């Protein structure tokens, strides 16, 4: 059972990844490559549709499709993978994506969740085995920050604003 940290609380995952058993009308996450390969099929999906992107994908190229997507899942294959932070901010700030922005992969650990949330991720799919309580605490580790950021954390004061 995937665990999603959403708005500082743990929630059961209500999305299905492509390849898992998906009933008609289920909320489905499809890899970007798959979506590109067979767009006709996926855009007719009966339920909500999300896309999953990898660190090398250029989010700018999603601009036209974003309004029709309910979720973007950004892959963090390891804790040191940093490209997704840029992808997240660009999706939110430049492309105006308002759906669920989800961090997924082995890199989504409790020591990363604070920065991820600051970059606009509102759903954190914790890596397998990661301590959920620790992740909840980590989101509230800081109540000050220097940079502008998404207001999902416990930040009360910050230095610079956008």
């Amino acid at each position, binding site marked *: 059972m995937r665990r999603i940290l959403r708005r500082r609380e743990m929630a059961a995952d209500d999305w299905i990844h492509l390849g898992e058993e998906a009933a008609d009308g289920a909320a489905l996450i499809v890899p970007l490559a798959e979506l590109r390969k067979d767009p006709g099929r996926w855009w007719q999906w009966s339920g909500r549709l999300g896309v999953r992107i990898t*660190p090398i994908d250029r989010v700018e190229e999603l601009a036209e499709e974003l309004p029709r997507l309910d979720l973007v899942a950004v892959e963090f294959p390891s*804790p*040191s*993978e*940093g*490209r997704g*932070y*840029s992808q997240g*901010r660009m999706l939110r*700030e*430049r492309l105006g994506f308002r759906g669920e922005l989800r961090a997924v992969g082995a890199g989504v*650990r409790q*020591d990363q969740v604070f*920065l991820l949330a*600051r*970059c606009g991720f509102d759903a954190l799919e914790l890596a397998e085995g990661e*301590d959920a309580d*620790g992740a909840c605490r*980590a989101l509230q*580790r*800081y*109540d*000050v*920050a*220097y*940079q*502008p*950021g998404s207001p999902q954390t416990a930040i009360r*004061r*910050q*230095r*610079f*604003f*956008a």
Partner: protein
Amino acid sequence: MYQYDQLDQAFVDQRVAEFRDQTRRYVAGELSEDEFRPLRLRNGLYIQRHAPMLRIAIPYGLLASRQLAKLADIARRYDRGFGHFTTRQNLQLNWPNLTDVPDILAELATVQMHAIQTSGNCVRNVTADHLAGIARDEIDDPRPYCEIIRQWATLHPEFTYLPRKFKIAVTGSPQDRAASEVHDIGLHMARDAQGNIGFTVLVGGGLGRAPMIGQVIRDFLPLADLLSYLEAILRVYNRHGRRDNLNKARIKILVKTLGIEPFREQVEAEWQLGRASAARLPAEEVARVRGFFRPQPYVALEDFDASAGREPAFQAWYRYNTRPHRVSGYRAVFVSLKAHGQNPGDMSSEQMEAVAALAERVSFGLIRTTHNQNLLLADVRQSELYEVWLELARHQLAMPNVGTLTDMIACPGLDFCSLANAGTLGVAKQIQERFDNLDYLYDLGDIEIKMSGCMNACGHHHVGHIGILGVDKHGEEWYQITLGGSANGFTALGEVIGPSVPKTQVAATIERIVEAYRTLRAEGERFIDTFRRVGLAPFRESAYATHSAAA
């Protein structure tokens, strides 16, 4: 100097709590070594050859007396009573216990210090000209902008997991004393036609395995755009810098691969699109930070020659270890950490305490660290120089060799560092012993030796007039010598003189090189200028003249 407000203090306190928890999880086995590594590195903690090493940040090299005294106290209680000042103006402790580190960080936080981002693939300590604020040729004091960059870069949500480390240097003078052209980003303070403050921005410099000199990406960046432009550069780098090969992950490789023009186009495009959501730098915030760096309350004094009529030892120290000051009646004083028989950059707790107390008495309670691994008392009255000399001499801190050959830079090398291929400290000692005659050193004049124990180039060997690089040859320590490097204004990378030499031959080879210089030089010509005039060949010939063992 900058004083923390509640935000800064809360931040470092919360950072300590976070690292305490991470250390606890590591010790409890909840985090593996691989998982803990990137977390501890971002708090300055390495695991080295013998023990952990903690690199404490000294932002742009500025310390208050109480901070230096605290470092002395920490070095004594948690380490072996000494520390090592680095080329990036930081302090390294070589023997702390891993489980003590959260306590050390908590103690640092009580004096507005930390070890945040002194390692790891993130934006490192921002460095500056050690004569900032007192140099006569300065356009503006770079330190307020260093402080602003420090804050902006600290735990940046987007740029904490970069492809590789990222170093920024700011210089306020046309004469570059911060080696800014060999940094990932070098900022040169400038004024536009209307007299507004801004920066010439250089990008893609760096040493290490593939040394490169930074190139200008923007002739003039208005101050208000500083943070948004840095964000644009960092974003292009974060997205497109290589992550598949550690040796090709620095921004210099990206700039070189794309070419500076295409790279500039990408950055400018990103900047235009990203400005609206990037961090703004309001004039009030600039004014707030600048307010901490106002000139000291100097007394109106006349300049005079404090060395006149004094003994030769003081005159030598005055000539080599002090520098002119923007304000008449004052001079800047180097505290030499290059006494012969001592590891370059090392300082004992007793020495730190003595300098902290001295600075309190004679230099407004402030001390600076230099990228040449010395300290500086920036604002000493000329009338107090003699007393300062006596006090420094009492603590073996008055070796009158600043700017001479034995004022060399050296990384800790194989004796401490787990990356090193060869020792540096033994070689430094060998050079100090061979060149122990001060008159001979003075005759040689301005020569910079910079030594690294491996390709990572922490000792900046590429930009030494004489560079020494330790290499491993079938398990033996050998040394490759380069000539002609420079990072002061006219930045150049040294050229390899020939085959590397065995450890026992380093000082002797350098002696033959400087002897060649003495023969070749024109009247009053510095080593580096002779090299530029005559080139490598005559030096190569001399260096190996009697030395057949090199192969």
